[in-house]
Each structure stands twice: as C-alpha cells, then as structure tokens.
C-alpha cells in the first residue's frame, strides 16, 4: 500500500514555551479512520493543525502522498490545503452566508477569484453540493442562512464543506464535543460512513473513548505531546486507558458523563 500520510518526529513548542508535541511519528497507509484520543491539553488539536499548517510545527516532517508539507511556500500550501478537508468542534461556518455558499467555500482552492466572487462555480460543483446535502440529510436547506441552523445541522454543513474539497485526507477536530450524545453518535457515524464510502482516510480528534471505540478503525493515544498507544480499536484495555489518561483525569471523565446526562435531559 502506498503511504497516504507520514508524520516523522513532529514537535511543536508554542512561543509561550508550552511543548505541545514532542517527537510524534506515525503513518497512515490505508483509508482508515484513526481516532486520536487523549486528555485535554495533550496536543491533539495542535497535531492536526500542524498537518495543514494552521499551526506551524517547530520541527519534523509531514508527508502527504509525496508532498513535503512543511517545506511548501504559501502558493503551494494553498494547493496542498485543498487536498485536506477539515471539520471543527465549533463547526466554524460563516454565519451570514447561506448553506450553499458555505458548501461552495470548499471549492475556493480550485477556482479563481472572479469565479468565486460571482458564485459562478461549475455545474458539477453545484451537482456535487446538492448530492451532498441530500446525503447528509439537509435537502432543501441550500438557501438557509448558517446561523439559523441547529448544532447538528451546522456540523452536517461543516462535513459537507470539507467533502466539497474532494480531499485525500479528512482532519477532524472534536466533531461532537459541542453536541448532545444522540447527535454525537449520528455525526460520528456520518463521518465514518462517508470516509469509508469515499475510500478517504480520516484523523479524528476525540476525547470520548466510547465514541472512538464504537466508530474508529485505529486509535492513537496522545499524552503530554507524546504517542503512548497506537493500535487497533480491539487492543484498547483499561491499562491502556490508564496509560493515556492517568490518575487525575478520571474525574474529568466522570464530570463529562454528568454533563451529557444534563444535555440529554433537555
């Protein structure tokens, strides 16, 4: 199998002195859904932001296919970014744009300024957009403004925007952390199904171990900027979880369950 994503010895030290990543290496060589789990502050968000360079890594290497991401100039980076679709915890839709315009913004890397300014995208782009809306269960929502949608609906638009890019890789940062438990499961299922349907690998940051186990093919455990576990979902044991989360973090896990119950009761 050809290598899709190869990360070697990636480190990131923020200007504040925080060492968010310390020598992270792993390879994704088949279209699988990889969960990255770990306590809050472990460096999960930093890791996936270093891959599309929303955050500049301090050292290391990121290979996407044959492209050495960290050495690209800004023009080349734009081209590389369109191959990586990103999905966010806070959805990050442009609120005053319609659902359709949010989807079309996934095509910005492929068209020139005037085309995008006049919203004159190709017929195929529009066809893809309508097909995606139907697939994620938002048929008929194309003219709705993004700020009129519920959380779950927004995340569906966020997923569609990422897929409009026809990416080779999905980068997903806590897609369910702002959603209730039922919607969380629906959204995770949707992401995983779409990734498998399209033969597209995905890196999914998620702190909810249950969701990771239920939906993902492979799990990477990150603690204090280092990988402490990398294996298939079946290999997760209580010992592994203790390695990843440590003693003091169990309390936050318990609190999270309480929060879920509150949200579920609404």
């Amino acid at each position: 199998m050809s290598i899709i994503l190869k990360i070697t010895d990636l480190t990131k030290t923020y200007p504040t002195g925080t060492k968010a990543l310390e020598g992270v290496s792993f390879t994704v060589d088949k279209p699988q859904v990889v969960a990255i789990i770990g306590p809050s502050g472990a460096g999960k968000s930093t890791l996936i932001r270093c891959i599309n360079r929303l955050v500049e890594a301090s050292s290391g290497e990121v290979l996407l296919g044959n492209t050495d991401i960290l050495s690209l100039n800004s023009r080349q980076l734009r081209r590389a970014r369109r191959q990586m679709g990103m999905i966010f915890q806070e959805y990050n839709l442009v609120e005053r744009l319609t659902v359709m315009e949010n989807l079309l913004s996934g095509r910005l890397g492929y068209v020139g300024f005037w085309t995008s300014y006049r919203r004159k995208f190709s017929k195929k782009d529009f066809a893809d957009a309508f097909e995606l809306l139907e697939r994620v269960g938002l048929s008929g929502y194309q003219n709705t403004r993004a700020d009129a949608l519920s959380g779950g609906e927004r995340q569906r638009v966020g997923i569609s925007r990422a897929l409009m890019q026809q990416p080779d890789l999905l980068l997903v940062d806590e897609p369910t952390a702002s959603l209730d438990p039922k919607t969380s499961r629906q959204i995770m299922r949707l992401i995983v199904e779409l990734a498998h349907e399209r033969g597209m690998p995905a890196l999914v940051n998620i702190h909810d171990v249950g969701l990771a186990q239920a939906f993902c093919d492979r799990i990477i455990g990150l603690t204090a900027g280092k990988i402490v576990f990398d294996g298939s979902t079946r290999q997760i044991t209580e010992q592994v979880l203790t390695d990843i989360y440590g003693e003091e973090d169990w309390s936050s896990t318990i609190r999270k369950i309480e929060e879920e119950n509150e949200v579920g009761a609404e």
Partner: protein
Amino acid sequence: MKKLPEWHRIRIIDNPVIRQALVIAGIIYLFWSMSSLDIDWVRVGKGFPRAANILAHMFPPDFSRWQLLLRGTIESVQMALAASFFGMILAIPVGICGATNLAPKPIYLAARAVIILSRTFHEIIIAIFFVKIFGFGPVAGVLTLTVASTSFISKMLAEDIENMPSGQLEAVRATGAGFFQFLNYCISPQALPRYLGVSIYRLDANIRHSTVVGIVGAGGIGQVLAASFSRYDYDFSMAILLTIMSLVFLGEFFSNWVRSQLR
C-alpha cells in the same frame, strides 16, 4: 456611663490635616485663577442686555434669502455625502490592514499609525489647514470630513474584524482559499452589516460636522452662518440655525431608520 467602643467614618483622605489643607489650597487656587484670568465683571454684566438684544433681533427669523440658504444647505449635504463616500472606500484597506488577525505586524502598525494620527487633531484644526492649502470653499470641507470619516470607519472596521471568532477565519483558510477569496467569503459577509451601519452613522455625523467646518471657511451652510453673524444679520442667522436643526434632525432620523433595517 459605660465607655463605648471606638468607631469612625471612612474618608477618602484619612489624615484631617492633609484633608483641610487640600480644601484651603483648592479655594486659594480658585481665587488666584479668577484674578489671573482677568475677568472683567463689568463686561460680563453688559453681556446680558446685549444677548437680549441679539435674541430680539433674531425674531422673527428671516427666510427671505432662502436661495442662499438652500444653496448652503445643499452644499453641506453634498460635502457630507462625498466625504462619507470617500471615507467608506478608504476605510476598507485601512481597516483590513489595521486588524491584527489579518495583517502582518509592520503593516498593522502603519495602518494604526494612520488611524491614530488622523484622530489626533480636531476637525476644525484640519479644516483650517486645508483651507490654507486649497482656499475657502467646499473642497477643504470635503477633505477634512474625509480624513475624519476614514479614521472613524476604519477603526470600527478593524475592531470588528479583530473580534471575529478565529474559527471561521481558520476554516475558510483551511480550504486553500486565496486572500481575496478569504475576504469575500469570510470577512465581508460577517463585517458588512456593521460596516454599513457605522458608515450611515458617520454620514449623520458628517452632516453635523459640515456645518461646523464651514465656520472656518470650508464651505457649506456653516460658512453662510459665519458670514451672517459678522454682518449682524441676526434674523438671517436664526433662519440658518433653524435650518441646521432640521437638517440634523432629518439626518439623525434617516440614520436610525437605515440602521434599524440592517441586521
């Protein structure tokens, strides 16, 4: 009788000597400054009948020279409109460059320097300056109000952009969008309503300010007003003041109505 526990009120200055010394110093300073200002109480006394006299001459207001009045009013409104328009255009690049989350540090600092510098001096001072350069008339007025409008609108725009949630900016950047696409798909839809609101507010302010800069000779109805005062045409001055009042009321009303339509 039993001795009660000690209590005291809280003063801004605890020490009574310092407190009373400060009060006395304040009173002395007041007297000294009065005497050094050389206020001529006789003249102040004469001012009241003179004020009554002027007021008496102001009524009834004289609208007979309505053509001059109308021309001044139209000139003021046109000055305000032109200055608001140029200000709106210039504020876009200045505002974008003045937002930390969009512009690199040197450009950001340059843009902020422009904004601060143009806010340093009051419109009257800028107007005097432009009247010296371009002579009496509306050109100086338009330029003055353009400077003021640009700095006002661009400051608001820059702050609005800086307050945008970083996630939306990240998301559009992450699609591989170019800078102008990013402006078109992310910044502009989010900033537009407020930018228009601020611009309309500025138009309203420009109508008011256009009457003021006229007094130093920068055109518009203010210049007509200054001329009428210097010719002791108080009844005409009153007509002008009433016109300015209704103009400002109309401007305020229009600006509030437009802003209520934006969301």
